[in-house]
């Protein structure tokens, strides 16, 4: 049996859509905002229709072209005159537009043909039929109505699992943002029935915000500034304080919400009034707020009492009162009703979504009478209508707005709508002119902006969705000059006791470029010392060796340049800027010295240090020799011969360099640097694949180890984290960047350690492994620990084993320590 499943709360001020799915209710969010609610408000702006939050923008300026509260007019002959279209709009048509917009909340792969729509208890047959008609007009094939108080009762009954055996009376108290309703519901084993209802169409939570502004905030401001008649001035149409009024209303609304949870709240005022700044705090106690709204709340309680009396019932006949509507969050309401009626007041259901939730439960149990074929037929006709289109737009741009132009041919297309998929832009529904449109869309800086374009007919039904159009901001444009190579900075790689390149700007980025990066000092440089900090900006492959790239900017900051000590671990802020003419500007700020260094480099000024050339060659020579040794031992003589010629070449450069003065003005040092780079690049190319292969092998090893442990039941909880780490595995491996792969290995190792340490038993294999180790710093201490360990193993006391393993590990000489010490010398960059 197929059930309806979809439900809509078509409210006077706000509407929602939800779906029943296997016992659960999913309330859909507006894809253009973060809310579940859609204001039932429509603005007609010439050829543009705006529905929801953004329609409210026009209330002040163009109120006559904004339609709202039309639910109150359903089933009447009243129409709304829209001057901008010179048309009369009927409440049914307006409601259908809201319903269509709610359909847009559904993901692209879901369609709703049948729906349950809620109506107020007060709706008569004509009003109900009008609502049904609006549903059909919105494109639903099957519409079933449900009264709002019944929906609220269903939400309550389904979430609290209560069983009703005898006839009971419940009150549904619905206090929203703009309206107030009370319904008396009869509940028995089989059915729920609304037997009476009353309400006030002009009372809502928004009135309370105004009361806070008028009676608490305004007098406070007047007292502090000596201003008089501020309330009047705020509300006046020609007021200079218009912006202030809205700001204060927002603050009041927030304070109201806070006071539902706390005894007091603070309103922070930071305003300018008559060119004077006022910065102050106003404390509002819950009691003050309750005194303000008391008479309004008492009026609503009187309405409850009336409805009970009118139906010849006693307060004691009422089993419970269910609260819905956002305003019922206020504790005074619950307290006042409980005191006056003396029954259980239930606020357990979400007051904003209770109606749509209850309606969705109903939809989930209500069989759909729609035949399957009708759906199929519908899809067919849609497929058959052929729509041709062409889009013109810049796919890569640096502008903050971009023009999208499109041309269409096809039957029935009359309107279009463009939505940016991150939720930040909506063109609204606009009419096509001559089967085409041109629209400027705003872009998020530095991001890939994805758009969805909907094509609609005259009834505003979506005929086709084109998804996505992508515009990349800031990365490439036809007019700009792209970078031919990566621009990197040389930083220390403490793990490998070497330096490595960190990419700052990627190949293909468009000039001019600017970026601020933050590093920490990897060594302490005392003021007046000879020690130095090196900023080396390199053009070349980011996954290559630092010395294989072309140094385009090189700054050495010596201890003698410093006004204070540069302390290890403090921040170093480096701003790099490359102009369109490729001029490089480096600005360095040292936090611990509060000092700034600025250097500008251009081709003619390129500085190359003989010292640097020497250091780089020394570093690489060690590596080259090590690889030659391995190649020889594997009898791979062809390979070792190639490496040998690189070694000889590098030594020759070193000899030549040693004969030059650092202030040599000839081209020689540039030539030497060039030769050096080429040789190192050659070495890099010869060995890189091997190094990367090694990293990949290690990555796969640790992964296999981890998977072994993850397959054990007790480690189930670590699986999500594991999935998260390996999520972008393909990307990382394919990058062939050994540093990236290494960082993944590190993450996996950390997880591995966490798993091992989660259980004492995991330490047994470590313990047994350590038995084969014989290089402990203190052998006697190690022996004593092994005695303890063996005993614990016999007694199966694994906690002790864990401690023994920790103790033994501390006795293993830490070779890394020496390595790190060696590394902290002046030969490296000092950047971490």
């Amino acid at each position, binding site marked *: 049996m197929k059930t309806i499943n979809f439900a809509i709360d078509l409210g006077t001020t706000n509407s929602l859509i939800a779906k029943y799915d296997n016992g659960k209710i999913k309330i859909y969010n507006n894809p*253009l*905002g*973060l809310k579940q609610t859609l204001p039932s408000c429509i603005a007609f*702006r010439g050829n543009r229709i*705006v529905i929801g*939050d*953004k329609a409210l*923008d*026009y209330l*002040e*300026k*163009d109120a006559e072209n904004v339609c709202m509260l039309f639910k109150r007019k359903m089933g009447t002959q009243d129409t709304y005159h829209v001057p901008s279209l010179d048309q009369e709009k009927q409440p049914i048509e307006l409601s259908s537009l809201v319903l269509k917009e709610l359909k847009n909340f559904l993901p692209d792969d879901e369609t709703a043909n049948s729906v349950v729509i809620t109506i107020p208890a007060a709706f008569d047959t004509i009003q109900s039929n009008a609502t049904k008609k609006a549903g059909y007009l919105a494109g639903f094939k099957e519409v079933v109505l449900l009264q709002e108080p019944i929906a609220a009762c269903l939400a309550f009954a389904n979430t609290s699992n209560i069983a009703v055996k005898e006839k009971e009376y419940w009150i549904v108290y619905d206090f929203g943002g703009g309206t107030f309703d009370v319904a008396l519901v009869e509940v028995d084993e089989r059915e729920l029935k609304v037997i009476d209802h009353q309400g006030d169409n002009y009372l809502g939570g928004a009135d309370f915000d105004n009361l806070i502004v008028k009676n608490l905030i305004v007098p406070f401001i007047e007292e502090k500034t000596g201003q008089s008649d501020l309330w009047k001035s705020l509300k006046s149409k020609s007021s200079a304080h*218009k*912006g202030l*009024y*809205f*700001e204060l*209303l*927002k603050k009041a609304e927030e304070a109201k919400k806070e006071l539902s949870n706390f005894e007091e709240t603070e309103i922070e005022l*930071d305003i300018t009034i008559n060119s004077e*700044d006022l*910065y102050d705090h106003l404390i509002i106690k819950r009691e003050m707020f309750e005194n303000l709204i008391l008479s309004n709340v008492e009026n609503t309680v009187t309405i409850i009492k009336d409805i009970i009396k009118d139906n010849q019932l006693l307060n004691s006949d009422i089993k419970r009162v269910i609260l819905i509507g956002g305003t019922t969050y206020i504790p005074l309401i619950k307290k006042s009703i409980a005191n006056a009626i003396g029954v259980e007041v239930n606020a357990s259901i979400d007051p904003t979504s209770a109606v749509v939730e209850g309606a969705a439960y109903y939809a989930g149990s209500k069989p759909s009478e729609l035949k399957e074929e009708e759906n199929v037929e519908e899809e067919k006709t849609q497929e058959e209508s052929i729509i041709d289109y062409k889009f013109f737009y810049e796919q890569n741009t640096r502008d903050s707005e971009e023009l999208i132009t499109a041309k269409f041919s096809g039957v029935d297309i009359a309107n279009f709508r463009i939505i940016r*998929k*991150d*939720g*930040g*832009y*909506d*063109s*609204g529904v606009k009419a096509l002119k001559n089967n085409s449109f041109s629209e400027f869309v*705003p872009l*998020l800086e530095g*991001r*890939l*902006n994805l758009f969805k374009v909907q094509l609609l007919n005259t009834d505003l039904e979506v005929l086709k969705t084109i998804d996505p159009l992508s515009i990349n901001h800031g990365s490439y444009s036809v007019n700009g000059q792209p970078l031919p190579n990566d621009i990197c900075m040389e930083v220390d790689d403490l793990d490998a006791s070497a330096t490595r390149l960190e990419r700052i700007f990627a190949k293909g980025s468009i000039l001019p470029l600017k970026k*601020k990066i*933050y590093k920490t000092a990897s060594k302490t440089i005392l003021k007046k010392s000879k020690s130095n900090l090196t900023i080396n900006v390199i053009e070349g492959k980011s996954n290559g060796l630092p010395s294989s790239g072309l140094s385009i900017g090189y700054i050495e900051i010596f201890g003698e340049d410093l006004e204070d000590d540069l302390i290890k671990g403090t*921040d170093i*802020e480096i701003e790099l800027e490359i102009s369109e003419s490729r001029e490089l500007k480096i600005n360095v*700020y040292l936090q611990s010295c509060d000092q700034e260094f600025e250097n500008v480099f251009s081709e003619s000024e390129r500085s190359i240090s003989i010292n640097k050339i020497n250091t780089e060659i020394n570093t690489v020579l060690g590596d080259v020799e090590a690889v030659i040794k391995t190649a020889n031992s594997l009898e791979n003589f062809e390979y070792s011969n190639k490496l040998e010629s690189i070694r000889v070449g590098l030594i020759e450069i070193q000899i030549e360099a040693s004969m030059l003065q650092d202030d040599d003005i000839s081209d020689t040092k540039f030539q030497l640097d060039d030769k050096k780079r080429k040789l190192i690049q050659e070495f890099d190319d010869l060995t890189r694949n091997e190094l990367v292969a090694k990293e990949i092998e290690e990555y796969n090893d640790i992964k296999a180890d981890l998977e072994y442990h993850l397959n054990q039941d007790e480690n189930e909880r670590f699986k999500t984290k594991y999935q998260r780490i390996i*999520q972008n595995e393909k990307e990382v491996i394919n990058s062939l960047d050994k540093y990236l792969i290494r960082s993944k290995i590190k993450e996996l190792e950390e997880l591995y350690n966490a798993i091992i340490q989660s259980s004492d038993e995991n330490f047994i294999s470590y313990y047994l492994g350590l038995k084969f180790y014989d290089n402990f710093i203190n052998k006697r201490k190690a022996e004593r620990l092994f005695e303890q360990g063996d005993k614990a193993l016999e007694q199966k006391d694994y906690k002790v084993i864990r401690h023994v393993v920790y103790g033994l590990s501390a006795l293993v000489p830490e070779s890394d320590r020496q390595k790190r010490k060696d590394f902290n010398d002046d030969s490296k960059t000092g950047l971490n």
Partner: protein
Amino acid sequence: MIEIINQIFALESKLIKTGSNDYTRNFDRIASEFENLNYHVINPIGKPYRNEMTDVEASISGDLNKNSKITKVLKPIIYQIDDNETKLVQKGIVIVE
């Protein structure tokens, strides 16, 4: 995290009022940390306001026209980048005049 961003934003707005700019570096640094955590924070102050901007909740005083500008920002716009997909996680709350 969103509340932390809001508080830092409020702090910065207050300091701007004092006229001192000693703290700019610190706020730039914090902004860069938010970017590293995949939060893209935008302060739309002074920008022209268009009704099509669904990333702000605007209180509009006076007439909305081509010259309408965002004159006060009570909360910044926050986008979150998740797996290369950008999502709005907080609408800016602004006053437009």
